């Protein structure tokens, strides 16, 4: 039986291997390439998406587990917080290689949706699952604060 879920606001149906991680379904079957593969064991956060609004690692989430749920990827992150985060990332020139940044942005926007004005310890906690090998962390922190203040104003 196909797995039915919502993907970036649209109904989606997947009828392949229900054990396939959501990451590969998104990338290979639904052609949404913004979500990245980094480790396959939920250690790096490059694959982060929102499942019912929560930051989740799609590389260890079987498609079967998202039946009836709502998945948002970087491509579908267009609410006020998402726009502010993407804008702040660009404004501060956060990315270097950029490969991890979709995942960083998904974690950051989930944080801001849950907490309007996060403190530095809030940021440490929410972002600790996302590795950036270019070590753009200082700018990620700055961009989260910038996005928070632009959403607030």
């Amino acid at each position, binding site marked *: 039986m196909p797995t039915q879920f919502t993907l970036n606001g649209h109904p989606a149906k997947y009828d392949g291997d229900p054990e*396939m991680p959501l990451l*590969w379904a998104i990338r290979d079957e639904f052609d949404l390439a913004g979500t*990245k593969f980094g480790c396959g064991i939920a250690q790096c956060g490059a694959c982060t998406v929102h499942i019912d609004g929560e930051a989740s690692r799609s590389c260890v989430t079987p498609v079967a587990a998202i039946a009836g749920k709502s998945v948002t990827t970087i491509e579908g992150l267009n609410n006020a917080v998402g726009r502010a985060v*993407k804008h702040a990332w660009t404004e501060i*020139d956060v990315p270097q290689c950029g490969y991890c*940044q979709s995942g960083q942005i998904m974690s950051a926007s989930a944080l801001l949706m849950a907490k309007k004005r996060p403190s530095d310890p809030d940021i440490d906690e929410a972002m600790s699952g996302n590795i950036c090998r270019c*070590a753009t962390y200082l700018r990620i*922190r700055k961009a989260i604060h910038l996005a928070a203040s632009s959403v607030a104003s």
Partner: protein
Amino acid sequence: MTGSTRRDFLVRTGGSLIIAIALPTMARGQAIRRMSAAEIRALPATPNAFLRIAADNTVTVIAKHIEFGQGAFTGLATLVAEELDAAWSQMRAEAAPANLQLYANFNMGQQGTGGSSAMFNSYYQMRKAGAAARAMLVAAAAQEWNVAPGDITVEHGIVANAASGRKSAFGPLAATAAAMAFPPEPQLKDPANFRLIGTVLPRLDSAMKSTGTARYTIDVKRPGMVHSAILHPLAFGAKVKTVDDKAALAVAGVLAVKQVPQGVAVFANSTWAAQRGLAALTVDWDVSKAELRSCDEMYRVYAEATKFPGDEAELRGRGADALAGTARQLEAEYRFPFLAHAPMEPSNAVVEIGDGSAQLWMGSQMVTADQRVVAAALGLPSEKVLVHQMFAGGSFGRLGTPDSEFAGEAATLAKAWGKGPVKHLWTRENDIRGGRYRPLCVHRLRGGLDAAGNIVAWDQVIAIQSFLRGSAMDPNSQIKIDATAVEGARGLAYAIPNLRIGQHLMPNGVPASFWRSVGSSHTGFAVECFLDELLELGSKDPIKGRIELVREDEPRLKGVLNRVAEMAAWSGPKSRTGRAFGVAAVKCFRTYIAQIAEVSLGDDGLPRVHKVWCAVDCGVAINPDIIRAQIEGGIGFALGAALFGEVTLGVNGQPDQANFDQYRAIRMQEMPLVEVAIIKSTADPTGVGEPGVPPLAPAVANAFRRLTGKSVRILPFAKGVQA
């Protein structure tokens, strides 16, 4: 050099007229080779190869250096835009195709990126391209408006003649400009008149990388593409003995299992099926020719070797012989582990074999070498392999191996599959266990002070494997002293009258390679930690002692030391309860850099780094914000490696680490504050991708020693604090 102007083609694509005048970079038959800074500076202009002006006013810079985070696309576009007097908003960049004649890196003698050389190599070449194109636009306007070229100005992308009131954007003039005479020696601006260089311009790739729309190799899809994964032997040099592929072939979506020289490959109709197939393989390995030693055993052999002088890389005065007569002496042994690069994007490539030709999509750091290796694997001439250069999700040296081993593996698998496109993707386990590490090494240092506490003798012996000797970068196998092994120790910028650098190149079956900052990743630590201890032994301040010791011909090193001391309001290594300050300074890839780290003792016994001040002198600062970003990133990258980074080989030579749970990267909560000052300079620009790395670990270790009394001489700190 040929001075002739040659108009080869005027291209019409999608309604855009493009300036496309070809002039060979090199005279025909002249070999591409490494060049000195002066020779690079004297290269003639070649606008066609490096930029395209379209009817829609966009100026696209053709970037011969890969963009893997260091900002090369933005930097190269800045150089062109400056001399073209373009508006920044009209600038674009795209990757150059493989073409050694047009796109060689003259710092390397091949088409590639590395050694923090992109801006160093391209500072004049790209400016001349921009200046020549500007002159052609002016000539075109002069002809169309019937005015003298000298009465035409160009500013922010607008060509104008004040007297007639006529003006034009670049686009409408492009077609006429393409027919104008090409000026091989165009006038360059006086740097005092720069309008873009030295300012903070937004990166060209930020928006696409902040919206998930930037495209990397892993995002490439081709019609009929299959996916491959590979199982490598766990011990380096092991070969397949027997394969049981029944379970793998039973996985839905797995199409084939094939034995290749690199291991066992699984082909499937999806990435997931390929990875599941991989997990289902049972392989018996022949380890008779494998490297089976543990790191402990390697350290033992290497440490023993450092007790002997080795090959001489440098000798000053009486060298080690001078130690005997000194008032006080110190000896220390330093150990450095294998380090994986672990870029966020695991190695991957798409190879598509066609009729008598092939295509390669890859983040290719050594473009023409990768092309050659793929061609050889497929039995094709190099020019029959079309290289599509992609954004790469980091490298830190991983993509720049001397033997292009990943490109070769991808091509071997594509050939094993047959015709059509194959996307070959490594797992993170392939990456961490894949070798090409920063080589494990041991340094032994002996130093001597005179009665006044001055350092008068220095003996440094390094035991390390050579990854250059016998590689494609050393075709004659003639390397005796491997520059990548001793750089940062040889040519020390300190005036020590008696000095010797010795080197033992050790046999080792673990493949090694370049790792961000290369030799300086270990020499910087050994030199700057040992020096700090000698200064303390001689009752000298770490900053003042260094400045007094810097050679007269290295004033820029003094400059960064003075500046960083000002920034941190230096008043000695221990000026606050519970915290200490450590300094280190290096010259790395022609750039001078000093850092001060503020450190406390963490609950885990490791140094907790609160802040790092950094002064860098990289010549003309093309884009100060990208320089700061590279230094911030270099510091974070170096701190992660210093605290946790280590690939250990245990029983039977097998790596103990496989993924980020065991090979730890620095994370948000561990990143220190960073403050960067860029020394104002008119010297030609040098690199910033790598120089941020080497001073960090010794600055932290020097602070940690002042804080705890413990000299950390084994990296990573996680191991060294317990030793």
